[in-house]
């Protein structure tokens, strides 16, 4: 009989690994309250909540990037939801010529390093003389968000029995009625989860964005703003306040995606 109890050293190493993944993020929270704004002194010499007020009132440079990021993430998610669902519906049907190649094509934007996607898009904009705008950012984001929605939808469609679609057809529903009354309610949570993950990914993306945003001030997304603050810091705790905001904006969608798809073999987010 094999022991179901783990050796103590293994348990310690596993829990140590998890702590290693989480403790650094907690520091972001601590440093948002420090009174020291010029260095990363630990322990903080004093604690204050003034930086939240400063970020709200005295830093107008935070707001335009925040709105731009929300706008880009919303549009990119909407595009990815449509295209990702269509691709998933096609891919779960019976085998057809070129299926493996198409599946690779869908995966490629996240399998290749972001710098390649970014550089490739930038070259294309250069060759075709497309000026940088919010739409060039959306173009890049939607491309790598498609695979996120696609993966979630494919996992759910595979679990869904084909019988209910046939039953719907037998009862006289046409393709659109089947989609509206049978397929959509069954896929709803998977699509919602995929959409939220795509939103989180787009809201946070910086590697591709730098190549597709151009250098104008109006094209600065929140992650680009944060990167600027990391390279040329001023009022460091304010950066922490914004970091907490970014963290929360991605944390809750991820958590929600997990609870929406829990219990299946296809829990959301297995592949980023």
């Amino acid at each position, binding site marked *: 009989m094999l022991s179901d109890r783990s050796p103590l050293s293994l348990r310690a190493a596993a829990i140590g690994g998890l702590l290693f993944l989480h403790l650094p993020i907690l520091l972001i929270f601590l440093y948002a309250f420090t009174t020291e704004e010029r260095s990363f002194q630990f322990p903080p010499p004093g604690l204050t909540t003034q930086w939240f007020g400063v970020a709200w009132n005295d830093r107008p440079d935070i707001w335009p990037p925040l709105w731009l990021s929300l706008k880009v993430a919303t549009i990119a998610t909407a595009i990815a939801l449509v295209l990702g669902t269509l691709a998933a519906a096609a891919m779960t049907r019976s085998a057809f010529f070129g299926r493996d190649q198409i599946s690779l094509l869908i995966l490629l934007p996240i399998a290749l390093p972001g710098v390649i996607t970014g550089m490739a898009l930038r070259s294309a904009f250069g060759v075709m003389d497309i000026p940088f705008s919010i739409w060039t950012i959306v173009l890049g984001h939607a491309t790598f968000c498609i695979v996120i929605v696609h993966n979630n939808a494919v996992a759910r469609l595979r679990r869904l029995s084909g019988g209910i679609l046939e039953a719907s057809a037998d009862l006289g529903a046409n393709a659109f009625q089947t989609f509206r009354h049978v397929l959509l309610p069954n896929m709803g949570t998977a699509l919602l989860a995929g959409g939220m993950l795509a939103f989180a990914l787009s809201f946070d993306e910086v590697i591709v964005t730098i190549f597709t945003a151009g250098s104008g001030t109006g094209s600065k997304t929140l992650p680009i703003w944060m990167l600027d603050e990391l390279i040329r810091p001023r009022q460091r705790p304010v950066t922490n306040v914004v*970091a907490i905001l970014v963290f929360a904006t991605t944390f809750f969608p991820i958590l929600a995606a997990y609870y929406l798809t829990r219990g299946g073999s296809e829990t959301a987010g297995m592949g980023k």
Partner: protein
Amino acid sequence: MTRSAILPARGPADRLTAIFWRHPRVLLAILLTPPLVWLGVVYLGSLAALLLQSFYSIDEFSGVVKEEFTLKTYGELLRPSNFDILVRTVSIAAAVTLACAILAFPVAYYAARFARGHWKAAFYLGIMLPLWSSYLVKVYAWKLILAKEGILGWTAEQTYTGWIIDGLLSIPGLEGSSLSTSPIGTFMVFVYIWLPYMILPMQAALERVPNSMLEASADLGATRAQTFRTVILPLALPGVVAGSIFTFSLTLGDYIIPQIIGNSANFIGMAVYQLQGTAGNIPLAAAFAVVPIGIMLVYLGLARRMGAFDAL
């Protein structure tokens, strides 16, 4: 009066449904066209533009891109200063992948084999949340940790172990005024950021190792170590290779981490970024970007042969 067993078509929607039923390929084409057009035009089109630009060259005197086919730009990659960048990037990607595999194993193994009920969920979320949470926030957190006056330095001072950090920082090639300006810092942050990408496929592969095989191995008299080496490791290998695709590829292309943490030694991603930006040498930037594509295609080919795609 006879009634047909088939309902009469009531409108265009029904007629379309009939077409879909008789010609499934029509539906398939309708479903596939929009995503394929998007990915084909936007993504493959861009990759083609990248490839095209990498065969152009830049006029050294005027700085203008000459739009005629040449291999000169690829030749420039072999210049010692550029070749160093390629070697450095591939080495750190390999080192990061190895470190991730070692660190990920206990977490993945415990989560796959021993965690039950609430613990299972806790482990799952515990790996998922760092994977998905903001990349820049995580990098920033490490800037706080590795700074000279930061928590790591403070802990070392309190425990009188500062000499370990000083010792590491005096190793030739790894020098820096603090960990956050040393290549050691770059390496640590890479390992931290990409670790969850290794744990997940590894855990998935380990979960597929049947318990009966472990029992059989024990029945046949194998010690824990022997079972690990001869049963678990070979069966988990596809998962390790699948994870390594991510850690290797992501390290290969990253240009934010070395820019913020480390001694600003150049990596492929940074070279691409700088060449297309301030230097304006798009052909060379494109040539640099083609290198990771080539490396990853070879890598993916090898991984496929080792069955890693089934573990994804």
